[in-house]
């Protein structure tokens, strides 16, 4: 059976390159639109991009830290305890 185009050699690299191009395009596009921010800082160059990245990184790290305390094996409630 013919392999899916995503399974062909080099596909992952091509997808990453395309993604990088789209990322760059979204930032550069800011130069070509009327910037109408709600708050001045929002309109700084690449600010939404930076904010999105940092906010997500913060949420992942926070979730990871919370997981240290709250994660349990998924059979935690299955061991015959009253439920």
């Amino acid at each position, binding site marked *: 059976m013919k392999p*899916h185009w*995503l*399974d062909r050699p080099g596909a992952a690299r091509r997808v990453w390159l395309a*993604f990088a191009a*789209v*990322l760059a395009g*979204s*930032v550069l*596009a*800011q130069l*070509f*639109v*009327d*910037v*109408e*921010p*709600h*708050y001045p800082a*929002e*309109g700084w160059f*690449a600010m*939404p*991009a*930076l*904010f*999105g*990245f940092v*906010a*997500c*990184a913060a*949420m*992942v*790290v*926070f*979730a*990871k830290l*919370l*997981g240290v305390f*709250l*994660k*349990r*094996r*998924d059979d*935690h*409630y299955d061991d015959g*305890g*009253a*439920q």
Partner: protein
Amino acid sequence: MSAVLAHPAFALLVGAALVAVLRGRARAAVALVAPLAALALVLRTGDGVHATWTFAGASLAPFAADPLSRLFGIIFAIMAFGGALFGLNQPRRAEMPAALLYAGAALGVAFAGDLVTVFLFWELMAVGSTLVIWSVATPEAWRASLRYLMVHLAGGTLLLLGVAAHYAATGSLAFSAFDPASAGYWLILAGFLVNAGAPPLSAWVADAYPEASFSGTVFLSAFTTKIAVYALLRGFPGEPLLIGVGLFMVFYGIVYALLENDMRRILAYSIVNQVGFMVTGVGIGTAMALNGTAAHAFTHILYKGLLLMSAGAVLHATGRRKCNELGGLFRSMPVTTLCGIVGALAISSFPLTSGFVSKSMISQAAGDEHLPWVWLALAAASAGVFLHAGIKFPWFVFFQKDSGLRPPDPPLNMRLAMILFAALCIGLGVWYEPLYALLPFPTDYVPYTGWHVVGQLQLLLFSGLAFFALLPLLKRTPTITLDVDWLWRRALPAVAGAVERAWRALAGAWREGSRGIADGAAASVHRTHGPDGILARTWSVRSMGLWMLVLLLCLLLIGFLA
């Protein structure tokens, strides 16, 4: 009688009864026609009160309509149709009638003009949704449904108490915006918030919904939390507490979904997250915010239904729901993958999808009202939605590693339901004017400006970059995350067990102690009154005479001394 026949809920309730007894094609036909009939009835229902009833001296309006109820009526009917189409080949026969009963009850709330009718249909929804979970008939589903029912009966009780207090104080049972000073305000608000999945009881959503069948969860995702949003929109617009509650829900949903391994629990946490946006919008309370909330409820029902259909298709095909056991399904399930991606893009509010035209109204309202922290939190949350649902769900289910599974796409009816909802998600993103025309307040909001599109794309695409950059931290593990439901699943049973053991020990000690006393008393009686006891043995007449003489002498002596 004609008002009953014209009520949109009637079509679904009759459909539920027929589906319960019919078989084969007739059953399938009724399951599909009943929601379409309900949709037709919603569309022909004009504004105003269509039925009145006097109950125990109070005037009730069990059938009333306005733009808000019509908006929710339309989406509930569409959802019932899509869910029925998706669930036609569900082998558990009890699920479809339960689901139609549930959807009909939701329409009953949406078109209720008084609080008694709201309460009755509210409880009927709890019954219908519990039956949907019961129909799975597994021990896990049974236990989850009992926990679900417990939470909802508690919420219903709060609502009933609030309605009673409100009626006693105001003499009115009309369902309209409540006065914060009125008795019952907080009780009714709490009752509505329980159904919305608000803290501290958010855990029920991710606990119960994923235990339903591959098709049952699709129904469950749509009605209970969204009817709560409808009730908040009508009863509590502008309540500032709701901004805080909503933002908590938004981030709770993101963080718990990031930690979760079960694909349907990820989407269940995501429901709390999305309803959080809506609750925040109700709290902001301006026309823009309320329009945004109503629009977002509408679009959310479609894309969350679509996401859960794609997850349901995977569960149906593989029998698996854990991300660490899935992956690579894009090779053999292209339609499901594509539809899942459309749902993921819509929930993330990508331009040209339905989420973009609805959620941005809520952010716009926060900006317009000069609530910078709320606006900032909503922007961060928008990035987080892409992170936890927009990428995480499709990545771990359809891509990541190759699990070796090669299941085909699901049967035609399930594919059609997914394609219909995917088309609606994109259609509403492109052609949003019909949705805006249905909103409760007139609006001239324009979602597509150059800056809005570019800013949103930057935010989302770099959130995607963060996901892949931090992928090692997001590696799936076969774990769950403890939540408040630990209190009633573990702590309360443990406390009850400890109390029971202490009671048993106390009772045992008491039994032992009392037995000792009783044995001592019996021995003492035996000693004195037994066959050889001093008080029971036979005495000779001579000694009796002697003791009588001693006794009389004592009496004489006492008499003499006295």
